[in-house]
């Protein structure tokens, strides 16, 4: 690992920290003091190639490629303990989500993430709800005396995917295939 992180100053992307910090909810990145509290309480700390405080340090240093290609940004149980406990109020769990979206822009999307995004686009729900599936679910609900589900207009969901650029990303990276 240390080998991989040994870089010349000229190879660093010094703007990477600002690329992140200007996004909604991510300004706090710049306040990190490298205390390591985030990593010590992290649920997945034994499973990642770069622990939380090292990801933050790498962002601040400008090690963009190392960060965006790390497996660590996708290995998170979303427990938010890092954000909760950081003495400097760094919102690490949110920053991690932003880093995932930056990696996604470059086409690096694990299928565990892309498949639910496609399911929501096609069904309005994160669980398939059409044709045979829908019939079974509706029957089961009726048996329990539960009201019918009046789901969203699919065109509206698709429109939001389009306007926010997610539709294009799906097309570009062919994750739907």
């Amino acid at each position, binding site marked *: 690992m240390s080998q991989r992180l040994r870089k010349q100053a000229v190879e660093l992307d010094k703007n990477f920290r600002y690329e992140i910090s200007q*996004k*909604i*909810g991510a300004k706090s990145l710049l306040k990190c003091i490298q205390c390591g509290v985030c990593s010590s309480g992290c*649920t*997945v700390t034994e*499973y990642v190639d770069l622990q939380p405080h090292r990801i933050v340090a790498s962002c601040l240093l400008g090690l963009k490629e190392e960060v965006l290609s790390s*497996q660590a940004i*996708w*290995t*998170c*149980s*979303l*427990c*938010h*303990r890092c*954000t*909760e406990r950081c003495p400097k*109020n760094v*919102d690490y*769990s949110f920053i991690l*989500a*932003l880093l*995932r*979206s930056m990696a*996604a822009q470059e086409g690096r*999307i*694990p299928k*565990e*993430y*892309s*498949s*639910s*995004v496609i399911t*929501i686009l096609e069904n*309005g*729900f*994160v*669980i398939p*709800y059409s044709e045979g599936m829908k019939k079974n*679910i509706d029957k*089961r*609900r009726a048996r*329990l005396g*539960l*009201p019918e*589900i*009046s*789901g*969203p*207009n699919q065109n*509206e*969901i698709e*429109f*939001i*995917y389009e*306007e*926010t*650029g*997610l539709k294009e*990303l799906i097309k570009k990276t062919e994750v739907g295939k």
Partner: protein
Amino acid sequence: MDFAFFLGCTIPLKQPNLEKAFRDVCSILGINLKEMAGASCCPEPVSLQSLNIDTWLTLGARNLAIAEKMGMDVMTICSGCYETLKTVSVLLGEDPGHKAKINDILKKIKYEYRGDINVLHMVELFSQPQWLDKIKQSLVKPLDDFTFAVHYGCHLIRPSKIMRFDHPEKPERIDTILKTLGARTINFATKLECCGYCARLQDEIGEKLVEDKMTELCELEEDVDALIAVCPACVSQYDRKEKLIARRTGKEMNIPVLYLPEIMAVALGVALEDLNLTQRSVKPDKLIEKLTT
């Protein structure tokens, strides 16, 4: 009291018996749930927020706009939905510029998100003093002989600067509800550990977390009648993984996992046959036996 009832996906489409238990509890307590026609997935916080935060914010704001039009606060019964909708409302509330940007998109499909309603989780409501009183008055079957372990899960309480819900390291609200039903709750080391459901890439993470918690509960001196959770993901994660681990390791793990409204419904007098408590991997046979004798 009226609420815009946000169903989400997992409960209505996969675990409708949990929805039924919640509706039963509300009708006994006099809480009116109004259906949110046209609501979509919250959208779920793991994948969508990760791939494009604006898509996540806009779909979330669209759901909130539906409730705003109804003029009611939103009631959620899944911690994932709660996290998404509450975070969307807090982030957009703190950033008017971004809210305007999201509204520019929403206006084109005739929605507007103003930001003047609250997002609640059912636990938030039930643990308010007036509802605890109401629960106490409505008790049909006090759970005096029962001991439960509570699983708070993560999204309900953290990050506290957004959720503003309970103490992030020492929460009490679910324990308080269960005590009001007459039951005892225990403290244990792994009480605040995550269920691991959201760690998508490595199954082993979830398995380890479930095994740790269940092993601790099994080894306690006291018998625990059930693990009580408030999110469908946590419920199914513990229920399914517990069975898998027992099969793999040969360890006897027989702690049933119940959804808070299920046990509330029992205490409030809903018939056991109506709750389908046996529709899970770890059957709560002992608990049912104890309830019926």
